[in-house]
């Protein structure tokens, strides 16, 4: 069995507020880039499936050359190989089209595993789009894999506070949630292997597809305005200061 884990390079969550709209539009970000935190759970989920059910876990991303470093992180966690599909123009449907073409080119993928969404785009549409592009069943909200083999898979999905147990035939697309497992540390041996690994780069032409022209555009994004804090020092004797504070609190309708 082969598990293909789809990861995306995103800004570090702590750095997200620093991203400017112009940068986001151009795709060239000056902030610290990491593996999308949700996708770290996808990596953990896929590697655990490899350990439990046998086969190989592979990582793939659609992005620029710099995304190769993120693939190295996936290898350091334990993926056996990784592939970069080089494109920075596609929207979610375009990425799904490219990934579906890559899956077909590989020919032996049993399960595609994705995170639940990305911390930058936040659309959560990719797994569904990919299922559509491949014509495979899609299981979202996967919190636990109960059993899996060449023929099919049984998983637990988290639905609000409840859990569903569902079954689907292979091949299938799984979108996992963080309950699938805490991402593991890279081991030092894997870090070394990852640093030396040859990572193939496929272009849309190699895959024989044209990147669909994006139909969804982000024209603007607004951040909540920074909160303004007011600092007032009340002077005078303790009684005067207390009275002034009380007046101020009443005026602000805090009391």
């Amino acid at each position: 069995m082969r598990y293909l884990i789809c990861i995306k390079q995103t800004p570090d969550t702590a750095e997200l507020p620093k991203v400017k709209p112009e940068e986001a539009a151009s795709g060239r970000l000056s902030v610290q880039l990491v593996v999308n935190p949700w996708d770290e759970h996808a990596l953990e989920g896929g590697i655990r499936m490899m350990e439990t059910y046998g086969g190989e876990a592979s990582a793939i991303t659609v992005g620029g050359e710099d995304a190769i470093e993120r693939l190295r992180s996936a290898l350091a966690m334990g993926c056996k190989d990784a592939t970069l599909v080089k494109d920075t123009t596609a929207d979610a449907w375009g990425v799904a089209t490219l990934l579906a073409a890559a899956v077909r080119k590989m020919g032996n993928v049993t399960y595609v595993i994705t995170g639940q969404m990305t911390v930058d785009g936040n659309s959560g549409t990719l797994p569904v789009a990919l299922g559509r592009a491949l014509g495979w069943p899609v299981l979202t909200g996967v919190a636990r894999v109960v059993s899996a083999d060449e023929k099919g898979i049984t998983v637990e999905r988290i639905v609000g506070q409840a859990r569903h147990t569902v079954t689907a035939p292979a091949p299938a697309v799984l979108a996992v949630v963080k309950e699938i497992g805490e991402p593991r540390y890279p081991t030092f041996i894997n870090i070394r292997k990852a640093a030396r690994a040859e990572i193939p780069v496929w272009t849309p032409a190699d895959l024989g597809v044209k990147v669909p022209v994006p139909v969804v555009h982000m024209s603007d994004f607004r951040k909540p305005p920074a909160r303004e804090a007011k600092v007032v020092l009340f002077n005078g004797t303790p009684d005067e200061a207390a009275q002034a504070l009380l007046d101020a609190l009443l005026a602000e309708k805090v009391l």
Partner: protein
Amino acid sequence: MDFTFTAEHEQVRRAVREFAAREILPYIKENDRKQTFDRSLLPKMAAAGLLGISVPVRYGGAGFDYISLGIVAEELEYADTSARVIISVHNALNSLGVFQWGTEEQKQMFLVPQARGEKIAAFCLTEPGAGTDVAALRSVARRDGSDYIISGEKTWISLADVADHFLWFAKTDPHADPPHKGITAFMITRDMKGVTTGTIHGKLGVRAGNTGWVHCDEVRVPASHRIGFEGEGFKIAMSCLDNGRYTVAAGALGLTRAALDASLAYARSRKTFGVEIGQHQLVKRMISLMVQRVEIGRLLVYRAGWMKNMGMRNTRETALAKWYCTDASFESASDAIQIHGAYGYSDEYDVERFLRNSKGAVIYEGTRELQQLLQADYALGYREDKPLRCELPAYDPVYWQSEA
């Protein structure tokens, strides 16, 4: 000359930093306050491969070089001394000792599980009546057929209450002249009858670390657990210290860096007399000294690491790095508190912990005074290192990284 770290070294540094940020820093204040050793850290360090970082892959390690070992120590102590101490005793003092002096059978028996982190290792030299004066130790090992019977008391032993394997130094010839020629090394395991351990509380620093005593009461140890020949124990202990001191020096460098970083952040944010305190000349002086200590320390530490990689004897250079870096970290931590004013004097900030942690390393693995005597004796020609029967092998990436 080449002063650059390789890309692989940088990756190791990044990985250890991430590990420390996730597994140590969030809990350290609490563990330090409560004097608790976080045992759950060990399996995590093992899984990452930290507990065998510089041991060849064929012996269960990760196959990285001695410079990487220094980097691991530096980055762990940047977070907390207690984590670096694990590396000093488990990796350097014990495991590298077995790697250097053990037979192939002993490497399989002890080094492999230690490098994988399945067994935790400690180093038992100090006794109530023998610290700096190692030759005064009173543990005895008496031959009995194919076994030895060992009795004695060790104290101030890092990981005493945690470790499974104890590299133990005892006298097989209590009347040897000079006395250090009567010392022999043994690997004692916790499951042997007559081994008891306990923890010392109330330490000034390294309060999140485990330090204690180990007692052997007529413990029967098979001769196959004797490391090296009878009478070779003192030399073995000293070559273990060549590696232990290296990690202590590298760790102290990390602590000095931590003191500097904390001081820079505070000096840029605290204002007195209308300006950031970083603008005051006397504050600048403290900052500049810390910068100097980091740079000198780095040169001394990684020269020693490089010499180990090359297979060169480095007793003098490692001891110098240990002396300099531990003194430097104590001074830097003290200056960092000074820069923080009253806030540095409370555990709201980390710098008071830095000072408490830094003092131990000025004492263990050879006190500052012993280091000074060593350096003077080398300079005066009173001391010279003679070749050892078993030298620490030079780093050979092909040998280290191949499976067998």
